[in-house]
C-alpha cells in the first residue's frame, strides 16, 4: 500500500524539484494535480481509453505549469501569489466543469482506469505483491527518481537549470536564456505533477471527486524541502510519509474506540518534529521566488 500511496506525492515532488531548482517557487503543485486528475477522467470518459485520459491529463498539467512559468517569468509576477491563484482556479474550474459536464456536483461516474501490471517474476515471490500488480505510474514514479537525478546533476541541461536557480545573473552572462529554461522547467514540473494527479484519479481510483488531491500537493512541497531539493531526498521523504501513513492506518484498526483523526495526525506531527529537531539548517536555491529581470542590479 505504501508504494502506491507514495506515487502521487513522489511525482508531484519531482515536478516541484524542476521548477524550484530553476528558481521558480511552486506552491501550485496542488492545483496542477487537481486539474490533471480532472481532465484525465474527462479524457478517459469521452474516449473510453484511459491512455488518452493519461495524455490529456498530463497535457493539462503541462499547460498549467507553463502558465505558472509565463506569469512568473514573462510577466514577472509574484510567484507565491500566482501559485495561490492557480490553486484557487483549479478548485473553481474543476468544480464548475464537473457540475456543468456531468450534471451533478460531488464526483464523476466511474471511467476506464489504467490497467494493473504484474511483474513476471515478482508475482510468484512471497511478499511479491508488494512490488507487483500496480498501475503503470507506480513503476514509472520510482523509475523516474534516478532519471531525474541524472537529468539534474549529470547533464548540461541540469547544470544550466541549477545555475539559474542559484545565480541567474551569472548564467545570463554566460549566454544561457534564463526565461526559456525557466519556462521549460515549470512546464516539466506541470508534466510530473500532472502524472501525479493522473495516478490518483485513473490509477488508485477510476473517477474524479471534488478536491480529491486533499493537500497532497502541499505534502509534495514539504517533501521537496525535507529532501533538500534532491531526487533521492525526495524519495526517502515520501517513503517516510508513506510508512508513517500506513502505520497510523494500522493503529486505527487496532484502537477502534479512539477516533481515527487522532492517528491521521501522526504523519504531520512526525514531519514537524523531524523538521524541527533533526533536519539541519535548510538552504533553498538562492534565486527562488525572484523573477529574473535582465539588467536589473541586484546582489
Amino acid at each position, binding site marked *: 500500500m505504501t508504494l502506491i500511496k507514495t506515487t502521487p506525492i513522489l511525482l508531484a515532488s519531482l515536478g516541484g524539484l524542476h521548477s524550484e531548482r530553476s528558481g521558480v517557487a511552486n506552491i501550485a503543485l496542488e492545483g496542477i494535480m487537481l486539474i490533471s486528475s480532472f481532465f484525465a477522467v474527462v479524457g478517459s470518459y469521452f474516449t473510453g481509453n484511459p491512455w488518452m485520459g493519461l495524455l490529456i491529463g498530463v497535457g493539462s498539467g503541462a499547460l498549467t505549469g507553463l502558465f505558472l512559468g509565463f506569469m512568473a517569468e514573462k510577466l514577472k*509576477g509574484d510567484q507565491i501569489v500566482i501559485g495561490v491563484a492557480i490553486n484557487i482556479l483549479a478548485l473553481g474550474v474543476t468544480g464548475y466543469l464537473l457540475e456543468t459536464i456531468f450534471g451533478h456536483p460531488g464526483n464523476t461516474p466511474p471511467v476506464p482506469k489504467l490497467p494493473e501490471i504484474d511483474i513476471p517474476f515478482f508475482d510468484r515471490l512471497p511478499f511479491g505483491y508488494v512490488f507487483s500488480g500496480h498501475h503503470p505510474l507506480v513503476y514509472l514514479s520510482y523509475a523516474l527518481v534516478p532519471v531525474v537525478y541524472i537529468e539534474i546533476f549529470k547533464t548540461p541541461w541540469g547544470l544550466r537549470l541549477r545555475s539559474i536557480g542559484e545565480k541567474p545573473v551569472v548564467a545570463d552572462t554566460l549566454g544561457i536564456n534564463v526565461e526559456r529554461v525557466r519556462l521549460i522547467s515549470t512546464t516539466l514540473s506541470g508534466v510530473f505533477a500532472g502524472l501525479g494527479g493522473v495516478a490518483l484519479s485513473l490509477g488508485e481510483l477510476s473517477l474524479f471527486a471534488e478536491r480529491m488531491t486533499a493537500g497532497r500537493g502541499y505534502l509534495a512541497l514539504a517533501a521537496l524541502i525535507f529532501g533538500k531539493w534532491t531526487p533521492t531526498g525526495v524519495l526517502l521523504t515520501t517513503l517516510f510519509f508513506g510508512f508513517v501513513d500506513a502505520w497510523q492506518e494500522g493503529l486505527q484498526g487496532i484502537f477502534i474506540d479512539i477516533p481515527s483523526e487522532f492517528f491521521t495526525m501522526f504523519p504531520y506531527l512526525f514531519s514537524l518534529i523531524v523538521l524541527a529537531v533533526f533536519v539541519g539548517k535548510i538552504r533553498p536555491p538562492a534565486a527562488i521566488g525572484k523573477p529574473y529581470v535582465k539588467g536589473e542590479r541586484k546582489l
Partner: protein
Amino acid sequence: MDKSRLRSFLAPIASIFFGLAVGAVFLLITGKNPIDTYFWMFYGAWGSPKFVAEMLTRSTPLILTGLALAVGFKAGVFNIGAEGQLLFGGIVSAYIGAYWHLPVFLHPVIAIIAGSLAGASLGFIPGWLKVKKGLNEVVITILMNYLAIYFTNYLVRGPLKYGYLPRTKPILDTAKLPIIVNGTRLHLGFILALIIAFVLYFIFERTVWGYSIKAVGFNPHASRYGGIDVNKVIVFSMLLSGGLAGMAGSIEILGLHHRFYGQFSPGYGFDGIMVALIGRNNPIGVVFAAILLATIRTGSGLVQLRAGVSKEIVWVIQALIILFVAVSYIYERFFRFGKINLQKGEG
C-alpha cells in the same frame, strides 16, 4: 491624493473589473448568461436589507483572517496556517463558552481573549522555527494546518463530543455575542472586526511597532542595519497574525454557530490570503475586500437558483481576480523601476 496612493486604490478595482470580465467570457464559453449571473449575484447580496445583513455576517470572519494574513505579508511572512489557528481559537472559545460559568459581559470577552491566545500560540511556533532554524514558514504552517484540522476533529469526536453528532456542547447564553439587527444573523462580531481593522490601521500608520513591521517586510537587511531586531519583529508578527486568525474562529463560534463542529469554517483561513491580496495588506482595504468576497459568495446562492449556474463559478471568479491582482503588482513595479532609473540617469 498623490499618484501612488491613487494607483493603490485603482489597481484593485481594475483587477476586480478584469476578473469579472474574464469570468464573463468563461461563462459564455460554457454556455451560460453572464449578465443574468452577475445580476443575481449582486441582487443576492444587496437586494434587500436582510441580504445585506447576511452578507455582512459572512464578511466578518473574512475581515479578521484577511487582517491576519495582511499583518504577516507586511512583515514578509506568509502565514498559510491561519486556517489551523482559526480552528484552534474556535474550539478553545467553544469550550470556555460551554463549560465555564462567567457573568454576561465578561464571558465572551474571556472566551475571545483565550481563543486569540490559542491562535497566537499556534502562530508562534512557525515564527520561532523560522527565526531559529531558518525553516520556511509556508511548509511549517501547512503541516500545522493538518495537525489542527485532525486534532480538533479528534476532540469533537472524542473528549468534547456532545450528543450523537461530532460537535461540542452548545455555548451558554452568557457567552453569546448579541445580534445587532433583529431578524438576521448579523452579530456584534462584525463591529468588533471593524474596530480591530481601524486599530491595526492606526498601528501601521502611526506607531513605531507598525513602522518596524513594514520596514522588515520591505527590506530585512536594511532594517537590521537600521537597528530593528528583525527576528523579534518576525516572531511578533506571526503571533499577531495567529492571534487575529484565532479571534476569527472565536467570534464565528460565539456570534454565529454557538458550538464547534468540524465544518464550521469552509476555509476562511485560506480565504484570508485572497482578502489580504485584494485589500493590498491595508487594514481598511481588507474590510472592503472581505465585503467584496462576501458579496460574491452570498450572491452565489441565487446564482445557482435563478441563473442555473454552478456555485463553483465563485471560485473561478475569485481566482481570476487574484491573477489580475498579481499582474497589477507587476505593472506597478515597472512604473517604479522607470522612476528610479530616470532619477539615477539624471544624477
